């Protein structure tokens, strides 16, 4: 049995920038623990000699030509921004 404590959940929530209340943390810890238990159950399957699967489709990545086909849509790119200036997004100061 694996079990996640509240502190670990708080950390994961912080890393994902999700605001979770104290009660929510306890609830989430229970949910996540049950998910991990389920994964643990899956671990019992013998996968000796099986290559890890990164995609369910038996396809590989299509490649595109190196051509400039997009861009020059500054107005469109900025249209949802709450604040802009001189063609830039403007955000609360982030600096060391």
């Amino acid at each position, binding site marked *: 049995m694996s079990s996640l404590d509240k502190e670990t959940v708080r950390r994961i929530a912080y890393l994902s*920038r999700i605001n979770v209340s104290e009660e929510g943390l306890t609830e989430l810890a229970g949910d996540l623990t049950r998910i991990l238990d389920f994964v643990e159950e899956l671990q019992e399957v013998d996968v000796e000699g099986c290559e890890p699967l990164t995609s369910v489709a038996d396809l590989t*990545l299509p490649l*595109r030509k*190196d051509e400039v086909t*997009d861009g020059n849509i*500054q107005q469109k790119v900025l249209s949802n921004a709450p604040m802009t200036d001189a063609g*830039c997004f403007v955000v609360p100061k982030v*600096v060391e």
Partner: protein
Amino acid sequence: MTYIIEGSTGPWEIVVGLEVHCQVVSNSKLFSGASTKFGNDANSNVSLVDAAMPGMLPVINAECVRQAVKTGLGLKAQINKESVFSRKNYFYADLPQGYQISQFDKPIVGKGTIILDMPDGTTKSVGIERLHLEQDAGKSMHDQDPKYSHIDLNRSGVALMEIVSDPDIRHPEEAGAYLTKLRAIVRYLGTCDGNMNEGSMRCDANVSVRRPGEPFGTRCEIKNVNSIRFVMQAIEIEAKRQVEVLESGGEIIQQTRLFDQRLGETRAMRSKEMAHDYRYFPDPDLLPLVFDDAFIAEIEKTLPELPDEKKARFINENGLSAYDAGVLVAEKEKADYYEIVAKGRDGKLAANWVITNLFGALNKAEVGIAESPVTAENLGKLIDLISNDTISGRIAKDVFEIMIETGGDPEKIVEEKGLKQITDTGAIETAIDEVIAANPDKVQEIRDGKDRMLGWFVGQVMKSTGGKANPGMVNKMLRDKILG
């Protein structure tokens, strides 16, 4: 080379590994069709993919894949025919996706090697751990407004190759030599322009210290140092700091640090404290990248002669020393220039003129080889003028000075200034007779056995002919006249 920090409790050795981000030379971005051009209006080279609008899907650029493979081949590295893109998750204002598409456990290029050419002419090999493809982030500007940061996403999504070395570096100068060599290789290959001051090549240094022979110590990562000289300085300063911490009974905490070149110190970056937990997972928007041997073979055909091979050829075929060959191949433009000068001429003589005279003059003027006022063709002609006795070596230096100033053709300069060597016996004889007639006492000294006075006479004759007399002829004729 050994580099030891003598602490108060004994000697310490440094262990360094470098992570270098090289911006891939391509027209469009790694996963979108927006331009990679530098210096355009803010957010004009941005597609909705780069701005991470919902529902946008990445499609990989074939050229970026080829450039990564080409670089891998240049590093004599293992090419992985199957590789996987993963998401590296972190939040920052200039990373609109909230993750960087990178490669984690299956990079496109595996283990390789770089041979360092040290300033003393020796070599050392440093292992390459891997090379992987990833997206660049946007650019944050913090100095436009006291309360806000400005974000430009033009760089967001441009392809980077992250090249990770093994922790084989033991000297700040080796770190410098590593970066110099890596830059030369990517420039020869044309896969990255290698300009550190424009940010198209950026370096993070992992630094730790240990007692010689003991296991590795805890390392700190110094982020984004933007010149080779600063990387060397940052390593020196960080290693000294770690020794001081350890010797005063402290412990090194693994952390990301910033190098402040103005204050000459490194300091911890607070914002990165939680950032090491990137929660990588395979990007569900991207299938595995797979190619075959034919794809690699096609790229292999386009490989140019690389610095190591060129250096060996200069040593073996042109008879140059390892040091001179190393200086010439350090930049492709320098090697190309030298090859034009050396073609059909004495390789060593050509190397002397290029390294001593030309590079000397360019360094003094603080210009690069591309801005050289003297073309390789003209420097070649100058060497021909010496070889066929049109001018003496001494006059050649004067002609070279004029070439540096005016960029002129040496044949014309010699013609116009009347600098042709005098090989006409009659003219030389007249000059000799005049000097002898004016200095009977000195002639007597020579006849009395003071042989070295002969040199003085040669000098006088050269002076009276404006340096144009053939020194060999002057010497012989003087000897014949005075002693003969």
